[in-house]
């Protein structure tokens, strides 16, 4: 039924869309269209559909046609491994398409680009891509962050816009029911969670409330920031961080130790979901709709949507709260949308039309191209009002707008484009907007580590040690939280074990790569 609605909406849009203005200045080739093969498999969509309205529009404007030759397409939800596997499969098959787009493409192109599998883009951009050139000149840190160890760029990234990602959320109606204020400090937060556990805010007579829960268990570890620890330096879990121009790992710091000690206490007292490590991605859905969950740390847009439950659960209100002040009084929100993702697209080493291809990449950084990448097709999905793209109401009503968009070929992570946060504001609900305003006023975000590119020797050392170090860190982390070990008693042993496993060697190569890439 949904499919039917969608296609009829598209058909209806087609009719309205016909009188688009001719955009001759966007044309890349004259005469016969240029066909370029494309592999595109990313977290949101496993193939490149030639029938997407966005592709059709791009064809009309640029006269370049992308032809899908994606191998290894699958719908796996495990985005990190699934997509890398598809890339490896493509490379192993021996045929590299003209354009390769994917999630997690950065390390891949930075490893195989210098070997010749992908073309370096710097010169092509300088000579043929004015919009990309301007973009990178304005944001040199982004150019630095995506470069390989040889200093060249091998892919054009997907660049998310907007700053905010995850936030703290709390059942404000439960606060009201128990006569509690919005928690301002970690002590307050603990009191509130304890009250959720013991004072039966859902009123069913049982102490079945789950005060703090999370869809992804690293969001529990995120709480160590309340004791001045850190859980990650980027938007990827367990990542390194930059402290005073040097790379460190958050799981080796004192604040982390203190944080884990307290989280273990919270876990033991039942302030944290007992099944936090195994409940998985349905945790938020289940615990909120069963009227059991009290507080979490999760994305603005999708979490605010749960306020629709107020039609089933009387008084239900799930609002963003400012990060509680840590023990030393700092209020930080560790997670933010990273300005540059390791996703995007690259030019295959055997591409016979590199100039046209870079011009095509450049097209998506023109005003029209960027709008097409963000909002879909004018007249079909949005209309222009006062120089701004405004989604059509019927398009907004089709369900989650980001999903509707990538079903028409917009907002693809496998395409190098600059996101326009305005697209998201238009379908964020009042709770999300209110939360974002709260976080804006408080200015809680901190700077992020944008990653490094290793040379071959550094890569070898990293590969040799990092997997073991990381496994050991996570193993101890869960054991401590679950009470199968004691962080205080084991800390020295933990540190020396990290040293034995080679953490300092990994940090050394991180630092040498960091210095080369970002200077300083």
């Amino acid at each position, binding site marked *: 039924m949904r499919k039917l609605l969608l296609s009829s909406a598209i058909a209806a849009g087609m009719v309205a869309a016909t009188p688009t203005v001719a955009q001759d200045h966007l044309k890349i080739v004259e005469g016969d269209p240029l066909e370029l093969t494309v592999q595109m498999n990313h977290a949101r969509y496993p193939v490149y559909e030639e029938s997407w309205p966005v592709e059709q529009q791009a064809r009309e404007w640029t006269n370049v046609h992308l032809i899908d030759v994606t191998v290894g397409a699958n719908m796996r939800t495990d985005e990190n491994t699934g997509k890398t596997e598809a890339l490896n499969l493509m490379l192993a098959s021996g045929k590299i398409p003209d354009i390769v787009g994917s999630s997690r493409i950065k390390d891949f192109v930075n490893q195989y680009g210098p070997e010749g599998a992908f073309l370096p883009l710097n010169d092509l951009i300088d000579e043929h891509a004015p919009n990309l050139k301007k973009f990178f000149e304005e944001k040199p840190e982004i150019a630095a962050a995506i470069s390989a160890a040889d200093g060249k760029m091998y892919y054009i990234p997907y660049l998310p816009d907007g700053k905010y990602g995850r936030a703290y959320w709390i059942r404000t109606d439960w606060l009201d029911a128990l006569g509690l204020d919005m928690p301002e400090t970690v002590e307050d937060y603990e009191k509130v969670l304890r009250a959720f556990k013991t004072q039966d805010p859902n009123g069913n007579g049982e102490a079945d409330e789950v005060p703090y829960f999370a869809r992804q268990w690293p969001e529990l570890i995120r709480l160590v920031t309340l004791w001045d620890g850190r859980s990650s330096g980027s938007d990827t879990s367990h990542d390194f961080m930059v402290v005073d121009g040097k790379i460190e790992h958050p799981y080796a710091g004192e604040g982390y130790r203190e944080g884990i000690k307290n989280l273990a206490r919270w876990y033991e007292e039942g302030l944290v979901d007992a099944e936090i490590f195994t409940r998985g991605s349905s945790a938020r859905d289940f615990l909120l709709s069963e009227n059991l969950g009290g507080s979490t740390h999760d994305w603005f847009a999708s979490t605010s949507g749960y306020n629709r439950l107020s039609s089933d659960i009387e008084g239900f209100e799930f609002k963003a709260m400012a990060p509680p002040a840590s023990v030393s009084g700092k209020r930080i929100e560790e997670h933010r949308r990273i300005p540059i993702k390791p996703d995007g697209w690259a030019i295959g080493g055997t591409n016979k039309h590199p100039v046209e291809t870079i011009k095509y990449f450049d097209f998506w950084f023109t005003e029209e191209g960027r709008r097409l990448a963000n909002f879909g097709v004018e007249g079909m999905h949005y209309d222009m009002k006062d120089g701004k793209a405004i989604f059509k109401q019927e398009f907004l009503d089709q369900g989650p707008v980001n999903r509707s968009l990538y079903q028409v070929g917009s907002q693809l992570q496998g395409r190098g484009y600059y996101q326009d946060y305005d697209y998201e504001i238009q379908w964020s609900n009042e709770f999300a907007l209110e939360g974002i305003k709260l976080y804006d006023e408080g200015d809680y975000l901190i700077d992020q580590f944008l990653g490094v590119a290793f040379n071959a020797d550094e890569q070898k050392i990293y590969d040799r040690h990092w997997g073991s170090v990381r*496994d*050991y860190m996570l193993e101890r982390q*869960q054991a401590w939280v679950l009470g199968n070990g004691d962080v205080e008693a084991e800390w020295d042993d933990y540190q020396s074990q990290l040293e034995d496993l080679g953490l300092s060697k990994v940090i050394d190569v991180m630092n040498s790569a960091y210095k080369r890439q970002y200077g300083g």
Partner: protein
Amino acid sequence: MLMPAIVWFIIFLYKPMYGLQIAFKDYSIFRGVADSPWTGFEHFETLFSNDQFIRAFWNTIKISALNLLFGFPAPIILALMFNEVINATYKKTAQTIVYLPHFISSVIIAGIVITAFSPSVGIVNTVLGWLGIDPIYFLTKPEWFRPIFVGTGIWQEAGFGSIVFLAAIAGVNPSLYESAVVDGASRWQMMWRITIPSILPTIIIMLIIRIGNVMEVSFELIILLYQPATYETADVVNTFVYRQGLQSGRYDFAAAAGLFNAVVAFVLVMVANTLSRRYSRTSLW
């Protein structure tokens, strides 16, 4: 008639052996197997200098030993029990029920196990609750991982594994039983003196095959069930290789670990076969 089997062996078993050389190379998918530079035993050194690999190796052995100890006799006992059931309808129904789990995918099995052992809604903890025992978060306790894993394996495979033994029992000469009845033997005596000795060759062959698979614990189920908290007992060679080799695209390293696995399995089969030939005069070759 042998041709299809030979072709199958060549295409799927002998030809891929060419790729084994990447265990000794610095392999790049782009450069290909032939053009990647040699590195000698570097990947093996990395492997053996890694404590987590050593731990994973012993975990593999321990889980397999438990599997052998409890999982191997289970289908034999089951087959002997089916053999004693007289009511045919009951027998068929029971057999169908115990075969069924074999056909369920590991993902579903893992889901069932996670739910069954959940501290809040799981049936196991509910029963423990009736007995006045506090809920246990089984899947994060290293000491519980092996029993749960091995038990799940038995539940899933014992029924299906019993088929081969039932077939062996069906092949026992009925005149042996008839003369035993004439001699006044009890059913218990017939089982011990006739059935089991008659199917012993089958049991030994199955045991040798099983020993050859010692290194191949069903790692997809482990991946679905384990947590960093239970790596201590749950991490086996294959999961270790998956995490540290394949997930990060280190195929050469993963191939080295796989090769080591194969060598160990080969040695085990050789030993089991030799022992069996010497002591029971039954052997695979």
